[in-house]
């Protein structure tokens, strides 16, 4: 028996897949060949080592989030969704709609950023930086806000003010040459989820766009939130691949409705450097436009928050032109 064949059989033997006849001939070979005997001994030790190693595993929330992402991507494909899954189809469509707006927005990116820069220059947009001691680490946060921000009141009132239909919000940022966008869809679920009448469902679409890889959906989880909760939700995500892989922690908050305005705030935290950016502005529900509401530049990174409002069933608005 040649060593090459013997080693294949030895390897099969380790997996318990070796017929008796082959086993006997391998044993005869091993008695004469110290190299193959060494190989056999190493293979057994290797298998023990594999048995000792801890298997990587993902938790349940990861699977739920991945499932939602696939649902969105499938919806974008125009893939069929089963009848009876109205809610998940709706979520998919909303998140897909948010992505769609993103791409439209990116086309007009430069002019809108220029408009926001002008607003920043004339003081309509303000920026403050605070440093917080978080578990012994200094964490800096940048708050970019619009001057016309309503006073906060009860969160529930804001939800109720939304009516029965969907509001869509979008924010995007540019960092290290990669553009990242967040599309957020919020709508009351009372009619769809009878058991949780007060809950709202939130669909988020996070998309990265890089020059070399093009647009890519990195996350579209769906979360259920309750009115009155202090923080609606907090989501940690890993996005991108290769050297540009960044981790973001995103938080979205809906503020109050006052004088027909609704405050929208989006916080983006790249976990690698821990610097949080909070973008805050006010929008009028039902105005059916995509508006830039906050912009600033921090170091080499540009941050802007765009807000889109439209009703379910309508096509997303293409946005203002500066």
């Amino acid at each position, binding site marked *: 028996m040649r060593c090459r064949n013997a*080693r*294949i059989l*030895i*390897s*099969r033997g*380790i*997996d318990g*897949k070796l017929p008796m006849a082959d086993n006997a001939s391998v044993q005869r070979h091993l008695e004469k060949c110290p190299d193959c005997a060494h*190989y056999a*001994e*190493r*293979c057994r*030790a*290797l*298998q*023990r*080592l*594999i048995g*000792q*190693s*801890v*298997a*990587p*595993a*993902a938790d349940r929330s990861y*699977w739920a989030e*991945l*499932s939602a*992402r*696939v*649902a969105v*991507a*499938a919806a974008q*494909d125009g*893939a*069929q*969704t*089963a009848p009876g*899954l109205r809610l*998940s189809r709706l979520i998919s469509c909303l998140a897909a709609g948010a992505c769609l707006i993103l791409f439209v927005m990116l086309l007009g990116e430069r002019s809108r950023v220029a408009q926001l820069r002008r607003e920043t220059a004339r003081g309509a947009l303000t920026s403050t930086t605070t440093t917080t001691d978080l578990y012994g680490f200094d964490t800096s946060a940048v708050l970019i806000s619009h001057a016309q921000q309503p006073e906060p009141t009860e969160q529930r009132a804001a939800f109720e003010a939304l009516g029965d239909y969907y509001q869509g919000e979008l924010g995007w940022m540019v960092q290290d040459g990669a553009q990242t966008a967040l599309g957020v869809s919020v709508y009351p679920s009372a009619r769809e989820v009878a058991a949780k009448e007060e809950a709202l469902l939130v669909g988020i679409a996070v998309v990265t766009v890089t020059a070399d*890889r093009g647009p890519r959906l990195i996350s579209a989880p769906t979360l259920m939130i309750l009115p009155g909760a202090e923080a609606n939700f907090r989501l940690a995500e*890993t996005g*991108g*691949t*290769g050297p540009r*892989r960044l981790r973001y922690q995103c938080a979205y908050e809906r503020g109050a409705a006052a004088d027909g305005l609704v405050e929208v705030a989006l916080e983006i935290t790249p976990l690698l450097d821990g610097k949080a950016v909070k973008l805050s502005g006010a929008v009028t529900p039902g105005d059916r436009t995509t508006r830039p509401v906050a912009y600033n530049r921090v170091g080499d990174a540009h941050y802007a928050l765009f807000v889109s409002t439209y009703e379910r069933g309508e096509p997303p608005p293409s946005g203002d032109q500066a």
Partner: protein
Amino acid sequence: MDIDAERRLVRRSQAGDRGAFDALIRAHRDRAYRLAYRLTGSHADADDVLQEAWLRGYRGITEFGGRARFGTWFFRILLRAAASHRRRLGRRADGEGGTALEGSEAVSGAADPQQRAAAHELHDALQEALCSLPADQRGAVVLVAFEGLSYAEAAEAQGCPEGTLAWRVAEARRRLARKLAPYLDSAGEAHHAM
């Protein structure tokens, strides 16, 4: 999942029932995650590969003829998705890319700090050695030696004859043993001491 239940879910998936397809994935998801992770070396890359495989599977379920089990068919898609992912990454050499850090994150386990550190070290070394293998060998050894698939199932997943698969596993073992020699020596000592 028994084969009849699997066939029913496959038929419903082929009729456009996404929930049925998700149920099929759910039955194989833990193994799929381990496979994706072992093939790519990081959670982020495994995530990319899983998403891609899931989508490809959903799009292609109507072409699934039932000759193999669903899991084997899906693992084949996953292996191809991993290969595509590697091609997309292009210049990124095998074995690079934050494996050690993310590998450590994936290991929970022992309460004793020393044991935990040892587990992390072993996990990272094993993953690094895996990532140094040619893709076909890596896939073969992960399917057989890590995940315990039969040679016939692994060959079906890799789309190659069983003999080729057996050679890939044997050769992968030879390379892994060389890379992991210090760990094998200590594992051997511990084994003999018992």
